[in-house]
């Protein structure tokens, strides 16, 4: 299935991309699976998405934890803790 991924702020700059679409197997349907695909790119991807890093995850514009199940065409966003206001 196809998953759209958005990156914001520091992550957008670190990866030098604001959005992309990745294709994952229908059986690999958790956020953590998506994160592992990205981490396998190594370098800055591995570093910034390390489990100890405090990045946040949203699915279809709501913040979630990384065991949420995905479906085709979901919008996943990865970003640092928010600093508005």
């Amino acid at each position: 299935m196809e998953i759209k991924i958005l990156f914001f702020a520091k992550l957008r700059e670190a990866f030098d991309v604001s959005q992309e679409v990745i294709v994952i197997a229908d059986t690999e349907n958790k956020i953590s699976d998506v994160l592992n695909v990205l981490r396998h790119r190594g370098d800055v991807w591995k570093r910034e998405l390390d489990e100890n890093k405090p990045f946040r995850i949203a699915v279809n514009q709501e913040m979630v934890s990384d065991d949420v199940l995905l479906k085709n065409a979901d919008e996943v966003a990865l970003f640092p803790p928010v600093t508005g206001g």
Partner: protein
Amino acid sequence: MSVRVQIEDFDVSQEMLALRKKNPKVGAVASFVGVVRDLNDGEDVSTLELEHYPGMTERALELIVNEAKTRWDIYDTLIIHRVGALQPLDQIVLVIVTSAHRGESFKACEFLMDYLKTRAPFWKKEQTSSGERWVEARASDAEAAERWTQGEGS
């Protein structure tokens, strides 16, 4: 309920008047304005660039407003958050809450700011004399939001 994400500045008096809607049941109008400071964590700031997640921002703010409405007896709320490039002294954010009596509007206004700070997808990047940097989230903001989950707001 009204939520706006905009580049333009805002006028507090005008927004209050509009939010009150000539409703003579409104006795209390609490508000908060956040302003860009020229100093943050020891660095002098010349410009602040505000990035956000269009779509999710509005949704997140509306969820926060709905939460406030279930907790307190309030009439209306307004949240305006600016994005783009801002300078010290510029207004960044406005929250207004109207109610019959002051206690509710004060509590709801502070709650909205605390939740906005930790749940709405905005990010600040500062230009300082030693270069640019992304602003780090503050533990004090997480703690401020956490208070409301422990019954203080009831």
